[in-house]
Protein backbone atom coordinates (compact mmCIF):
# COMPACT_ATOMS: atom_id res chain seq x y z
CA UNK A 1 0.00 0.00 0.00
CA UNK A 2 3.04 2.20 -0.28
CA UNK A 3 1.75 3.57 -3.56
CA UNK A 4 -1.31 5.00 -1.86
CA UNK A 5 0.85 6.68 0.74
CA UNK A 6 2.95 8.31 -1.94
CA UNK A 7 -0.16 9.38 -3.82
CA UNK A 8 -1.67 10.84 -0.64
CA UNK A 9 1.40 12.83 0.24
CA UNK A 10 1.67 14.02 -3.36
CA UNK A 11 -1.98 15.06 -3.27
CA UNK A 12 -1.72 17.00 -0.07
CA UNK A 13 1.50 18.78 -1.01
CA UNK A 14 -0.55 20.14 -3.90
CA UNK A 15 -2.04 23.27 -2.31
CA UNK A 16 -4.77 23.73 -4.89
CA UNK A 17 -5.97 20.14 -4.53
CA UNK A 18 -5.96 20.39 -0.76
CA UNK A 19 -8.10 23.52 -0.89
CA UNK A 20 -10.51 21.65 -3.18
CA UNK A 21 -10.69 18.71 -0.78
CA UNK A 22 -11.34 21.00 2.18
CA UNK A 23 -14.18 22.70 0.29
CA UNK A 24 -15.81 19.38 -0.61
CA UNK A 25 -15.53 18.01 2.94
CA UNK A 26 -16.99 21.28 4.20
CA UNK A 27 -19.85 21.00 1.68
CA UNK A 28 -20.64 17.46 2.82
CA UNK A 29 -20.72 18.59 6.44
CA UNK A 30 -22.98 21.51 5.54
CA UNK A 31 -25.32 19.17 3.67
CA UNK A 32 -25.37 16.72 6.55
CA UNK A 33 -26.02 19.30 9.25
CA UNK A 34 -28.16 21.64 7.16
CA UNK A 35 -31.11 21.57 9.58
CA UNK A 36 -28.81 22.61 12.44
CA UNK A 37 -26.75 25.14 10.48
CA UNK A 38 -29.50 26.95 8.63
CA UNK A 39 -30.91 29.91 10.54
CA UNK A 40 -34.38 29.49 8.97
CA UNK A 41 -36.58 26.89 7.36
CA UNK A 42 -35.65 26.86 3.65
CA UNK A 43 -39.18 26.84 2.26
CA UNK A 44 -41.02 29.02 4.71
CA UNK A 45 -41.12 32.73 5.22
CA UNK A 46 -39.85 33.57 8.67
CA UNK A 47 -41.86 35.84 10.88
CA UNK A 48 -41.03 39.46 10.30
CA UNK A 49 -39.25 38.79 7.00
CA UNK A 50 -40.27 40.75 3.96
CA UNK A 51 -39.52 40.10 0.29
CA UNK A 52 -36.18 40.96 -1.29
CA UNK A 53 -34.31 42.20 1.71
CA UNK A 54 -30.79 43.13 0.58
CA UNK A 55 -27.78 41.12 1.78
CA UNK A 56 -26.48 42.15 5.17
CA UNK A 57 -29.93 42.82 6.59
CA UNK A 58 -30.18 41.94 10.27
CA UNK A 59 -30.75 38.19 10.55
CA UNK A 60 -30.50 37.60 6.79
CA UNK A 61 -26.83 37.57 5.88
CA UNK A 62 -27.49 37.03 2.16
CA UNK A 63 -30.90 38.71 2.11
CA UNK A 64 -34.28 37.23 1.25
CA UNK A 65 -35.80 36.13 -2.04
CA UNK A 66 -38.95 37.17 -3.88
CA UNK A 67 -41.09 35.29 -1.38
CA UNK A 68 -39.22 36.51 1.67
CA UNK A 69 -37.36 33.24 2.31
CA UNK A 70 -33.84 33.43 3.73
CA UNK A 71 -31.33 32.96 0.88
CA UNK A 72 -28.53 31.67 3.10
CA UNK A 73 -30.77 28.94 4.53
CA UNK A 74 -31.87 27.93 1.06
CA UNK A 75 -28.25 27.77 -0.13
CA UNK A 76 -27.35 25.62 2.88
CA UNK A 77 -30.19 23.19 2.16
CA UNK A 78 -29.43 23.35 -1.58
CA UNK A 79 -26.02 21.83 -0.84
CA UNK A 80 -27.79 18.50 -0.38
CA UNK A 81 -29.32 18.30 -3.85
CA UNK A 82 -26.19 19.71 -5.47
CA UNK A 83 -23.97 17.07 -3.93
CA UNK A 84 -26.45 14.31 -4.73
CA UNK A 85 -26.77 15.43 -8.34
CA UNK A 86 -22.99 15.66 -8.67
CA UNK A 87 -21.98 12.41 -7.02
CA UNK A 88 -24.80 9.94 -7.73
CA UNK A 89 -24.86 10.20 -11.56
CA UNK A 90 -21.09 10.07 -11.80
CA UNK A 91 -20.75 7.07 -9.49
CA UNK A 92 -23.55 5.18 -11.23
CA UNK A 93 -22.23 6.01 -14.66
CA UNK A 94 -18.74 4.95 -13.56
CA UNK A 95 -19.98 1.55 -12.40
CA UNK A 96 -21.84 0.92 -15.66
CA UNK A 97 -18.93 2.25 -17.74
CA UNK A 98 -16.45 -0.03 -16.02
CA UNK A 99 -18.53 -3.01 -17.15
CA UNK A 100 -19.08 -1.75 -20.69
CA UNK A 101 -15.55 -0.41 -21.18
CA UNK A 102 -13.72 -3.46 -19.90
CA UNK A 103 -15.91 -5.83 -21.89
CA UNK A 104 -15.53 -3.75 -25.04
CA UNK A 105 -11.77 -3.46 -24.56
CA UNK A 106 -11.26 -7.08 -23.64
CA UNK A 107 -13.59 -8.73 -26.13
CA UNK A 108 -12.61 -6.78 -29.18
CA UNK A 109 -14.30 -7.77 -32.35
CA UNK A 110 -18.07 -7.98 -32.54
CA UNK A 111 -19.03 -7.26 -28.92
CA UNK A 112 -16.52 -4.47 -28.47
CA UNK A 113 -17.41 -2.97 -31.80
CA UNK A 114 -21.13 -2.91 -31.11
CA UNK A 115 -20.64 -1.25 -27.72
CA UNK A 116 -18.27 1.41 -29.03
CA UNK A 117 -20.33 2.16 -32.16
CA UNK A 118 -23.35 2.77 -29.93
CA UNK A 119 -21.21 5.13 -27.86
CA UNK A 120 -20.22 6.95 -31.08
CA UNK A 121 -23.87 7.74 -31.65
CA UNK A 122 -24.09 9.38 -28.24
CA UNK A 123 -21.00 11.45 -28.98
CA UNK A 124 -22.93 13.07 -31.82
CA UNK A 125 -25.05 14.93 -29.27
CA UNK A 126 -23.75 17.85 -27.23
CA UNK A 127 -23.96 16.55 -23.65
CA UNK A 128 -26.17 19.32 -22.29
CA UNK A 129 -28.72 18.93 -25.07
CA UNK A 130 -28.83 15.17 -24.68
CA UNK A 131 -29.46 15.58 -20.96
CA UNK A 132 -32.19 18.13 -21.62
CA UNK A 133 -33.86 15.90 -24.20
CA UNK A 134 -33.85 12.82 -22.00
CA UNK A 135 -34.92 14.70 -18.87
CA UNK A 136 -37.66 16.49 -20.82
CA UNK A 137 -39.02 13.21 -22.14
CA UNK A 138 -38.91 11.56 -18.71
CA UNK A 139 -40.54 14.57 -17.07
CA UNK A 140 -39.43 16.93 -14.30
CA UNK A 141 -37.96 15.73 -11.02
CA UNK A 142 -34.55 15.12 -9.47
CA UNK A 143 -34.61 11.38 -10.14
CA UNK A 144 -35.20 11.86 -13.88
CA UNK A 145 -32.42 14.41 -14.07
CA UNK A 146 -30.10 11.94 -12.39
CA UNK A 147 -31.11 9.21 -14.87
CA UNK A 148 -30.51 11.62 -17.75
CA UNK A 149 -27.08 12.55 -16.37
CA UNK A 150 -26.13 8.89 -15.96
CA UNK A 151 -26.98 8.19 -19.61
CA UNK A 152 -25.10 11.30 -20.76
CA UNK A 153 -21.94 10.47 -18.82
CA UNK A 154 -21.71 6.78 -19.75
CA UNK A 155 -20.23 7.25 -23.25
CA UNK A 156 -17.44 9.53 -22.03
CA UNK A 157 -16.49 7.28 -19.15
CA UNK A 158 -16.80 4.10 -21.19
CA UNK A 159 -14.35 5.52 -23.70
CA UNK A 160 -11.82 6.22 -20.94
CA UNK A 161 -12.15 2.68 -19.55
CA UNK A 162 -12.09 1.21 -23.04
CA UNK A 163 -8.83 2.88 -24.15
CA UNK A 164 -7.16 2.02 -20.83
CA UNK A 165 -8.31 -1.59 -21.09
CA UNK A 166 -7.01 -1.82 -24.64
CA UNK A 167 -3.62 -0.57 -23.56
CA UNK A 168 -3.54 -2.78 -20.51
CA UNK A 169 -4.65 -5.98 -22.24
CA UNK A 170 -1.83 -5.65 -24.75
CA UNK A 171 0.75 -5.82 -21.99
CA UNK A 172 2.80 -8.93 -21.53
CA UNK A 173 1.59 -9.94 -18.10
CA UNK A 174 -1.96 -10.22 -19.41
CA UNK A 175 -0.75 -12.39 -22.28
CA UNK A 176 1.11 -14.48 -19.73
CA UNK A 177 -1.95 -14.80 -17.52
CA UNK A 178 -3.98 -15.93 -20.53
CA UNK A 179 -1.31 -18.47 -21.42
CA UNK A 180 -1.42 -19.82 -17.89
CA UNK A 181 -5.12 -20.39 -18.31
CA UNK A 182 -6.34 -17.74 -15.88
CA UNK A 183 -10.05 -17.18 -16.46
CA UNK A 184 -11.14 -14.18 -18.48
CA UNK A 185 -13.40 -12.83 -15.77
CA UNK A 186 -10.59 -13.14 -13.28
CA UNK A 187 -8.19 -11.29 -15.58
CA UNK A 188 -10.74 -8.57 -16.21
CA UNK A 189 -11.44 -7.87 -12.58
CA UNK A 190 -8.21 -8.80 -10.85
CA UNK A 191 -5.67 -7.57 -13.41
CA UNK A 192 -7.27 -4.97 -15.60
CA UNK A 193 -9.71 -3.23 -13.27
CA UNK A 194 -7.11 -2.05 -10.72
CA UNK A 195 -5.06 -0.56 -13.53
CA UNK A 196 -8.00 1.16 -15.16
CA UNK A 197 -9.46 2.55 -11.96
CA UNK A 198 -7.05 5.44 -11.21
CA UNK A 199 -7.66 7.33 -14.44
CA UNK A 200 -11.41 6.71 -14.15
CA UNK A 201 -11.40 8.14 -10.62
CA UNK A 202 -9.57 11.22 -11.83
CA UNK A 203 -11.99 11.64 -14.72
CA UNK A 204 -15.03 11.07 -12.48
CA UNK A 205 -13.94 13.79 -10.08
CA UNK A 206 -13.58 16.29 -12.88
CA UNK A 207 -16.92 15.17 -14.34
CA UNK A 208 -18.63 15.62 -10.96
CA UNK A 209 -17.77 19.30 -11.17
CA UNK A 210 -19.09 19.55 -14.70
CA UNK A 211 -22.23 17.65 -13.71
CA UNK A 212 -23.10 20.20 -11.03
CA UNK A 213 -23.02 22.90 -13.69
CA UNK A 214 -25.07 20.85 -16.15
CA UNK A 215 -27.70 19.96 -13.57
CA UNK A 216 -27.96 23.64 -12.64
CA UNK A 217 -28.65 24.28 -16.32
CA UNK A 218 -31.43 21.67 -16.32
CA UNK A 219 -32.95 23.34 -13.27
CA UNK A 220 -32.85 26.61 -15.17
CA UNK A 221 -34.90 25.02 -17.94
CA UNK A 222 -37.42 23.90 -15.33
CA UNK A 223 -36.39 20.26 -15.21
CA UNK A 224 -34.88 18.82 -12.06
CA UNK A 225 -35.81 19.67 -8.50
CA UNK A 226 -39.29 21.16 -8.32
CA UNK A 227 -40.31 24.10 -6.15
CA UNK A 228 -40.44 24.80 -3.32
CA UNK A 229 -37.45 22.50 -2.65
CA UNK A 230 -34.21 24.50 -2.38
CA UNK A 231 -31.91 24.03 -5.37
CA UNK A 232 -29.10 26.32 -6.45
CA UNK A 233 -29.80 26.20 -10.17
CA UNK A 234 -33.48 26.85 -9.57
CA UNK A 235 -32.74 29.70 -7.18
CA UNK A 236 -30.41 31.35 -9.66
CA UNK A 237 -32.91 31.08 -12.48
CA UNK A 238 -35.87 32.19 -10.35
CA UNK A 239 -33.96 35.35 -9.64
CA UNK A 240 -33.54 36.16 -13.33
CA UNK A 241 -36.74 38.23 -13.52
CA UNK A 242 -35.61 40.16 -10.47
CA UNK A 243 -32.47 41.33 -12.29
CA UNK A 244 -34.60 43.78 -14.21
CA UNK A 245 -35.96 45.10 -10.94
CA UNK A 246 -32.46 45.66 -9.61
CA UNK A 247 -32.09 42.66 -7.31
CA UNK A 248 -29.09 40.77 -8.70
CA UNK A 249 -28.13 39.08 -5.44
CA UNK A 250 -31.00 36.56 -5.58
CA UNK A 251 -29.29 35.16 -8.69
CA UNK A 252 -25.75 36.01 -7.70
CA UNK A 253 -25.27 33.99 -4.51
CA UNK A 254 -26.59 30.60 -5.69
CA UNK A 255 -24.42 30.98 -8.80
CA UNK A 256 -21.37 31.59 -6.65
CA UNK A 257 -22.22 28.47 -4.65
CA UNK A 258 -22.39 26.42 -7.88
CA UNK A 259 -19.11 27.94 -9.01
CA UNK A 260 -17.29 27.13 -5.76
CA UNK A 261 -18.48 23.54 -5.54
CA UNK A 262 -17.83 22.76 -9.19
CA UNK A 263 -14.44 24.48 -9.03
CA UNK A 264 -13.53 22.45 -5.93
CA UNK A 265 -14.26 19.19 -7.76
CA UNK A 266 -12.09 20.15 -10.72
CA UNK A 267 -9.29 21.22 -8.37
CA UNK A 268 -9.41 17.79 -6.74
CA UNK A 269 -9.50 16.20 -10.19
CA UNK A 270 -6.33 18.03 -11.18
CA UNK A 271 -4.64 17.11 -7.93
CA UNK A 272 -5.63 13.45 -8.21
CA UNK A 273 -4.37 13.29 -11.77
CA UNK A 274 -0.92 14.33 -10.61
CA UNK A 275 -0.98 12.26 -7.44
CA UNK A 276 -2.48 8.98 -8.68
CA UNK A 277 -0.23 8.77 -11.68
CA UNK A 278 3.17 7.75 -10.34
CA UNK A 279 4.29 6.93 -13.86
CA UNK A 280 3.39 10.36 -15.13
CA UNK A 281 4.99 11.84 -12.05
CA UNK A 282 8.25 10.02 -12.42
CA UNK A 283 8.18 10.79 -16.13
CA UNK A 284 7.88 14.48 -15.44
CA UNK A 285 10.72 14.29 -12.97
CA UNK A 286 12.83 12.24 -15.33
CA UNK A 287 12.23 14.67 -18.16
CA UNK A 288 13.33 17.54 -15.97
CA UNK A 289 16.47 15.69 -14.98
CA UNK A 290 17.15 14.69 -18.57
CA UNK A 291 16.69 18.24 -19.76
CA UNK A 292 19.20 19.38 -17.22
CA UNK A 293 21.57 16.57 -18.13
CA UNK A 294 21.27 17.46 -21.78
CA UNK A 295 22.22 20.99 -20.99
CA UNK A 296 25.15 19.89 -18.87
CA UNK A 297 26.38 17.16 -21.18
Amino acid sequence: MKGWKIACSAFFTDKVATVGAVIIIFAFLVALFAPILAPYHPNEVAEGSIRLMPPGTDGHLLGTDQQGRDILSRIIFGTQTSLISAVVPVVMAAVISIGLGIIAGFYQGVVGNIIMRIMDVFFAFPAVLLAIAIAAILGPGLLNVIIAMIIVRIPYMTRVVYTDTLQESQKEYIEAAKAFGVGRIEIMFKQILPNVLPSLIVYSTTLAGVTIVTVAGLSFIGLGVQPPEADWGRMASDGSDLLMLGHPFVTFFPGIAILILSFAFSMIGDGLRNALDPYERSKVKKEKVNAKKAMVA
Partner: protein
Amino acid sequence: MIQAVRKKEAFLNVTNLMTKIHTPEGSMTVLDHINLSIDKGDIMAIVGESGSGKSMTIHSILQMITKNLLDSYAGEIEVEGKSILDIGEKEMQQIRGKKISLVAQNAMTSLDPSYRVGKQIIEIILDKTNLSKREAIEKALYLLEEMGIDEAKRVFQSYPHQLSGGLRQRVVIAMSLACDPDLIIADEPTSALDPSVQLQVLELFKKINRDLGTAILIITHDFGVVARIAESVAVMYAGQIVEQGKTSEVIYNPQHPYTNSLLNCIPDLDWIFLDGVGKKPLFQIKGEPPNLMNLSSGCRFANRCHMAKDICRSKLPELKKVHSPDLNHLVRCLLTERRESYAK
Protein backbone atom coordinates in the same frame (compact mmCIF):
# COMPACT_ATOMS: atom_id res chain seq x y z
CA MET B 1 46.60 29.60 -16.89
CA ILE B 2 48.12 28.40 -20.04
CA GLN B 3 47.00 29.88 -23.26
CA ALA B 4 47.05 27.95 -26.48
CA VAL B 5 49.55 29.44 -28.89
CA ARG B 6 47.67 31.26 -31.62
CA LYS B 7 48.09 30.73 -35.29
CA LYS B 8 47.22 33.36 -37.82
CA GLU B 9 43.59 34.03 -38.72
CA ALA B 10 42.23 32.94 -35.38
CA PHE B 11 38.47 32.68 -35.53
CA LEU B 12 37.19 31.58 -32.16
CA ASN B 13 39.02 32.08 -28.93
CA VAL B 14 37.73 30.79 -25.63
CA THR B 15 39.79 31.90 -22.66
CA ASN B 16 39.31 30.67 -19.11
CA LEU B 17 35.61 30.16 -19.69
CA MET B 18 33.66 29.39 -16.53
CA THR B 19 29.96 28.65 -16.82
CA LYS B 20 27.70 28.34 -13.82
CA ILE B 21 24.12 27.18 -13.90
CA HIS B 22 21.32 27.13 -11.36
CA THR B 23 20.28 23.83 -9.84
CA PRO B 24 17.80 23.13 -7.06
CA GLU B 25 20.83 22.66 -4.78
CA GLY B 26 22.42 25.96 -5.75
CA SER B 27 24.84 27.31 -8.30
CA MET B 28 26.93 24.68 -10.11
CA THR B 29 30.13 25.27 -12.07
CA VAL B 30 29.68 23.10 -15.16
CA LEU B 31 32.62 24.50 -17.12
CA ASP B 32 35.88 25.18 -15.36
CA HIS B 33 38.59 27.25 -17.06
CA ILE B 34 38.02 26.09 -20.62
CA ASN B 35 40.57 27.27 -23.16
CA LEU B 36 39.97 26.60 -26.82
CA SER B 37 41.20 28.21 -29.97
CA ILE B 38 39.89 27.48 -33.43
CA ASP B 39 41.39 29.06 -36.51
CA LYS B 40 39.67 29.45 -39.83
CA GLY B 41 39.71 26.15 -41.65
CA ASP B 42 40.51 24.09 -38.57
CA ILE B 43 38.87 20.81 -37.71
CA MET B 44 38.75 20.26 -34.00
CA ALA B 45 37.06 17.73 -31.78
CA ILE B 46 35.95 17.74 -28.20
CA VAL B 47 35.69 14.28 -26.67
CA GLY B 48 34.12 13.13 -23.46
CA GLU B 49 31.39 11.12 -21.84
CA SER B 50 27.92 12.56 -21.47
CA GLY B 51 27.94 15.00 -18.59
CA SER B 52 31.53 16.03 -19.21
CA GLY B 53 30.56 19.51 -20.35
CA LYS B 54 30.88 19.04 -24.12
CA SER B 55 27.42 20.32 -24.96
CA MET B 56 27.65 22.99 -22.30
CA THR B 57 30.71 24.33 -24.11
CA ILE B 58 28.79 24.74 -27.37
CA HIS B 59 25.79 26.22 -25.66
CA SER B 60 28.08 28.69 -23.94
CA ILE B 61 29.80 29.62 -27.20
CA LEU B 62 26.44 30.22 -28.89
CA GLN B 63 25.00 31.64 -25.66
CA MET B 64 22.01 29.40 -25.89
CA ILE B 65 21.72 28.28 -22.29
CA THR B 66 18.16 28.96 -21.20
CA LYS B 67 17.85 32.15 -19.21
CA ASN B 68 16.41 30.56 -16.11
CA LEU B 69 19.07 27.85 -16.12
CA LEU B 70 22.09 30.13 -16.56
CA ASP B 71 23.74 31.59 -13.52
CA SER B 72 26.80 33.33 -14.95
CA TYR B 73 29.64 33.26 -17.43
CA ALA B 74 33.20 34.26 -16.62
CA GLY B 75 36.27 34.42 -18.80
CA GLU B 76 36.20 35.41 -22.42
CA ILE B 77 34.77 34.19 -25.69
CA GLU B 78 36.00 36.04 -28.76
CA VAL B 79 34.83 35.68 -32.33
CA GLU B 80 37.24 37.23 -34.82
CA GLY B 81 38.86 39.08 -31.96
CA LYS B 82 35.65 40.59 -30.65
CA SER B 83 34.28 39.61 -27.29
CA ILE B 84 30.76 38.20 -27.49
CA LEU B 85 30.04 37.54 -23.84
CA ASP B 86 28.50 40.90 -23.16
CA ILE B 87 26.99 41.83 -26.51
CA GLY B 88 23.21 42.04 -26.77
CA GLU B 89 20.82 39.39 -28.03
CA LYS B 90 20.40 41.26 -31.35
CA GLU B 91 24.12 41.20 -32.13
CA MET B 92 24.34 37.59 -30.97
CA GLN B 93 21.67 36.69 -33.52
CA GLN B 94 24.01 38.04 -36.19
CA ILE B 95 26.68 35.61 -35.04
CA ARG B 96 24.43 32.59 -34.78
CA GLY B 97 23.88 31.03 -38.16
CA LYS B 98 26.03 33.58 -39.99
CA LYS B 99 29.38 33.17 -38.24
CA ILE B 100 28.84 30.03 -36.23
CA SER B 101 26.11 27.54 -36.87
CA LEU B 102 25.06 24.29 -35.37
CA VAL B 103 24.58 20.91 -37.00
CA ALA B 104 21.68 19.43 -35.09
CA GLN B 105 22.42 16.46 -32.90
CA ASN B 106 19.30 14.55 -33.85
CA ALA B 107 18.33 15.16 -37.46
CA MET B 108 15.17 13.11 -36.86
CA THR B 109 13.64 15.67 -34.52
CA SER B 110 15.47 18.82 -35.54
CA LEU B 111 13.51 19.47 -38.70
CA ASP B 112 10.03 20.90 -38.48
CA PRO B 113 7.61 18.11 -39.50
CA SER B 114 5.08 20.58 -40.93
CA TYR B 115 7.19 22.13 -43.66
CA ARG B 116 9.01 20.87 -46.70
CA VAL B 117 12.75 20.58 -46.21
CA GLY B 118 13.54 23.19 -48.86
CA LYS B 119 11.27 25.72 -47.26
CA GLN B 120 13.11 25.34 -43.98
CA ILE B 121 16.49 25.95 -45.60
CA ILE B 122 15.36 29.01 -47.52
CA GLU B 123 13.63 30.34 -44.43
CA ILE B 124 17.05 30.65 -42.82
CA ILE B 125 18.70 32.06 -45.95
CA LEU B 126 16.00 34.67 -46.41
CA ASP B 127 16.10 35.68 -42.78
CA LYS B 128 19.86 36.02 -42.48
CA THR B 129 21.00 37.23 -45.89
CA ASN B 130 19.90 39.72 -48.51
CA LEU B 131 19.33 37.08 -51.19
CA SER B 132 16.10 37.13 -53.15
CA LYS B 133 13.73 34.19 -52.88
CA ARG B 134 14.91 32.82 -56.21
CA GLU B 135 18.55 33.07 -55.23
CA ALA B 136 17.74 31.44 -51.92
CA ILE B 137 16.12 28.48 -53.67
CA GLU B 138 19.11 28.15 -55.97
CA LYS B 139 21.44 28.26 -53.05
CA ALA B 140 19.47 25.67 -51.11
CA LEU B 141 19.49 23.32 -54.10
CA TYR B 142 23.22 23.93 -54.59
CA LEU B 143 23.90 23.11 -50.94
CA LEU B 144 21.83 19.92 -51.12
CA GLU B 145 23.77 18.86 -54.22
CA GLU B 146 27.03 19.69 -52.50
CA MET B 147 25.97 17.34 -49.71
CA GLY B 148 26.14 14.53 -52.24
CA ILE B 149 22.37 14.26 -52.55
CA ASP B 150 21.54 12.93 -56.03
CA GLU B 151 17.94 14.02 -56.22
CA ALA B 152 18.33 17.43 -54.65
CA LYS B 153 15.07 18.67 -56.16
CA ARG B 154 13.08 15.77 -54.77
CA VAL B 155 14.63 16.17 -51.33
CA PHE B 156 13.95 19.90 -51.49
CA GLN B 157 10.28 19.12 -52.06
CA SER B 158 10.06 16.44 -49.36
CA TYR B 159 8.80 16.58 -45.83
CA PRO B 160 11.31 15.44 -43.18
CA HIS B 161 9.47 12.19 -42.41
CA GLN B 162 9.77 11.16 -46.05
CA LEU B 163 13.57 11.06 -45.90
CA SER B 164 15.93 8.42 -44.56
CA GLY B 165 18.11 9.12 -41.53
CA GLY B 166 21.20 9.64 -43.68
CA LEU B 167 19.44 12.07 -46.01
CA ARG B 168 18.00 13.99 -43.10
CA GLN B 169 21.46 14.31 -41.61
CA ARG B 170 22.73 15.72 -44.90
CA VAL B 171 19.84 18.16 -45.00
CA VAL B 172 20.70 19.35 -41.53
CA ILE B 173 24.32 19.82 -42.53
CA ALA B 174 23.21 21.74 -45.63
CA MET B 175 21.03 23.88 -43.38
CA SER B 176 23.97 24.67 -41.13
CA LEU B 177 25.85 25.95 -44.19
CA ALA B 178 22.94 28.08 -45.37
CA CYS B 179 24.55 31.41 -44.50
CA ASP B 180 28.19 30.51 -45.21
CA PRO B 181 29.32 30.36 -41.60
CA ASP B 182 33.02 30.38 -40.72
CA LEU B 183 32.52 27.63 -38.19
CA ILE B 184 30.03 24.82 -37.91
CA ILE B 185 29.64 22.97 -34.66
CA ALA B 186 28.44 19.40 -34.90
CA ASP B 187 27.16 17.84 -31.68
CA GLU B 188 27.35 14.04 -31.97
CA PRO B 189 26.58 14.28 -35.69
CA THR B 190 26.92 10.58 -36.32
CA SER B 191 25.78 8.81 -33.18
CA ALA B 192 22.22 8.31 -34.45
CA LEU B 193 23.33 6.89 -37.80
CA ASP B 194 24.22 3.47 -39.19
CA PRO B 195 27.99 2.82 -39.25
CA SER B 196 28.16 2.94 -43.05
CA VAL B 197 26.33 6.27 -43.15
CA GLN B 198 28.55 7.55 -40.33
CA LEU B 199 31.62 7.22 -42.51
CA GLN B 200 29.91 9.02 -45.40
CA VAL B 201 28.90 11.90 -43.16
CA LEU B 202 32.43 12.25 -41.80
CA GLU B 203 33.78 12.29 -45.36
CA LEU B 204 31.24 14.99 -46.12
CA PHE B 205 32.54 17.13 -43.28
CA LYS B 206 36.04 16.76 -44.65
CA LYS B 207 34.83 17.78 -48.08
CA ILE B 208 33.08 20.85 -46.70
CA ASN B 209 36.23 21.82 -44.87
CA ARG B 210 38.33 21.32 -47.98
CA ASP B 211 36.00 22.98 -50.49
CA LEU B 212 34.46 25.78 -48.49
CA GLY B 213 37.17 26.35 -45.93
CA THR B 214 34.64 26.10 -43.11
CA ALA B 215 36.12 25.39 -39.71
CA ILE B 216 34.49 22.44 -37.96
CA LEU B 217 34.13 21.68 -34.28
CA ILE B 218 32.92 18.16 -33.66
CA ILE B 219 31.59 17.07 -30.31
CA THR B 220 31.70 13.34 -29.78
CA HIS B 221 32.24 10.57 -27.28
CA ASP B 222 33.89 8.40 -29.91
CA PHE B 223 37.61 8.57 -30.50
CA GLY B 224 37.02 6.74 -33.75
CA VAL B 225 35.32 9.84 -35.12
CA VAL B 226 38.12 12.04 -33.80
CA ALA B 227 40.79 9.95 -35.46
CA ARG B 228 39.01 10.07 -38.80
CA ILE B 229 38.50 13.76 -39.05
CA ALA B 230 39.98 16.08 -36.45
CA GLU B 231 43.37 17.81 -36.58
CA SER B 232 43.29 18.63 -32.93
CA VAL B 233 41.32 17.37 -29.99
CA ALA B 234 40.35 18.38 -26.48
CA VAL B 235 39.37 15.70 -24.00
CA MET B 236 36.87 16.85 -21.41
CA TYR B 237 36.06 15.32 -18.08
CA ALA B 238 33.73 16.69 -15.41
CA GLY B 239 33.68 20.21 -16.81
CA GLN B 240 37.42 20.50 -17.35
CA ILE B 241 39.75 19.90 -20.25
CA VAL B 242 42.06 17.09 -19.13
CA GLU B 243 44.13 16.73 -22.26
CA GLN B 244 44.43 18.57 -25.52
CA GLY B 245 46.71 18.62 -28.51
CA LYS B 246 47.14 17.39 -32.05
CA THR B 247 45.01 14.35 -32.74
CA SER B 248 47.90 12.11 -33.70
CA GLU B 249 49.78 13.10 -30.57
CA VAL B 250 46.87 12.53 -28.26
CA ILE B 251 45.97 9.20 -29.82
CA TYR B 252 49.45 7.71 -30.08
CA ASN B 253 50.90 9.36 -27.03
CA PRO B 254 48.04 9.80 -24.60
CA GLN B 255 49.17 11.25 -21.31
CA HIS B 256 46.03 11.29 -19.25
CA PRO B 257 44.63 8.03 -17.83
CA TYR B 258 41.15 9.12 -18.86
CA THR B 259 42.23 9.62 -22.48
CA ASN B 260 43.74 6.20 -22.30
CA SER B 261 40.52 4.68 -21.05
CA LEU B 262 38.51 6.39 -23.78
CA LEU B 263 40.92 5.08 -26.40
CA ASN B 264 40.47 1.62 -24.98
CA CYS B 265 36.74 1.99 -25.41
CA ILE B 266 36.91 1.79 -29.19
CA PRO B 267 37.02 -1.78 -30.45
CA ASP B 268 40.31 -1.36 -32.29
CA LEU B 269 41.89 1.76 -33.56
CA ASP B 270 42.83 -0.08 -36.74
CA TRP B 271 39.15 -0.39 -37.48
CA ILE B 272 39.15 3.26 -38.30
CA PHE B 273 41.88 3.01 -40.86
CA LEU B 274 41.35 -0.45 -42.22
CA ASP B 275 37.54 -0.52 -42.00
CA GLY B 276 37.98 -3.90 -40.34
CA VAL B 277 36.09 -5.49 -37.52
CA GLY B 278 37.34 -4.93 -33.99
CA LYS B 279 39.34 -7.63 -32.29
CA LYS B 280 40.18 -6.13 -28.93
CA PRO B 281 37.74 -6.84 -26.13
CA LEU B 282 35.60 -3.82 -25.31
CA PHE B 283 36.80 -1.87 -22.35
CA GLN B 284 34.55 -0.06 -19.96
CA ILE B 285 35.45 2.75 -17.60
CA LYS B 286 34.24 1.74 -14.18
CA GLY B 287 32.37 4.11 -11.90
CA GLU B 288 30.50 7.34 -12.42
CA PRO B 289 31.73 10.87 -13.09
CA PRO B 290 31.80 12.98 -9.91
CA ASN B 291 28.91 15.13 -8.79
CA LEU B 292 29.86 18.66 -9.79
CA MET B 293 28.05 20.05 -6.76
CA ASN B 294 30.19 18.05 -4.42
CA LEU B 295 33.78 17.95 -5.60
CA SER B 296 36.78 16.85 -3.58
CA SER B 297 39.95 18.91 -3.62
CA GLY B 298 41.76 16.28 -5.67
CA CYS B 299 41.84 15.25 -9.30
CA ARG B 300 38.29 14.82 -10.60
CA PHE B 301 39.14 11.52 -12.25
CA ALA B 302 40.91 10.08 -9.22
CA ASN B 303 38.07 7.86 -8.03
CA ARG B 304 37.91 6.07 -11.38
CA CYS B 305 41.59 6.09 -12.20
CA HIS B 306 43.34 2.77 -11.82
CA MET B 307 46.66 4.54 -11.41
CA ALA B 308 45.53 7.04 -8.77
CA LYS B 309 47.93 7.72 -5.91
CA ASP B 310 47.21 9.44 -2.60
CA ILE B 311 48.29 12.81 -3.91
CA CYS B 312 45.73 12.54 -6.72
CA ARG B 313 42.93 12.61 -4.15
CA SER B 314 44.16 15.74 -2.42
CA LYS B 315 45.61 18.00 -5.09
CA LEU B 316 43.88 19.25 -8.23
CA PRO B 317 46.29 19.05 -11.16
CA GLU B 318 46.67 21.93 -13.59
CA LEU B 319 46.66 21.76 -17.36
CA LYS B 320 50.35 21.74 -18.29
CA LYS B 321 52.49 21.26 -21.34
CA VAL B 322 54.04 17.87 -21.74
CA HIS B 323 57.31 17.07 -23.34
CA SER B 324 56.22 16.25 -26.84
CA PRO B 325 56.88 17.23 -30.45
CA ASP B 326 53.52 18.99 -30.35
CA LEU B 327 54.08 22.28 -28.55
CA ASN B 328 50.45 22.50 -27.65
CA HIS B 329 50.04 19.11 -26.07
CA LEU B 330 48.60 19.83 -22.63
CA VAL B 331 47.66 17.43 -19.86
CA ARG B 332 45.99 17.77 -16.48
CA CYS B 333 47.57 14.92 -14.52
CA LEU B 334 49.85 14.88 -11.50
CA LEU B 335 51.34 11.54 -12.43
CA THR B 336 52.40 12.76 -15.84
CA GLU B 337 53.87 15.86 -14.22
CA ARG B 338 55.85 13.72 -11.84
CA ARG B 339 57.06 11.38 -14.54
CA GLU B 340 58.13 14.31 -16.66
CA SER B 341 60.08 15.88 -13.82
CA TYR B 342 61.86 12.57 -13.19
CA ALA B 343 62.72 12.34 -16.85
CA LYS B 344 64.35 15.73 -16.69
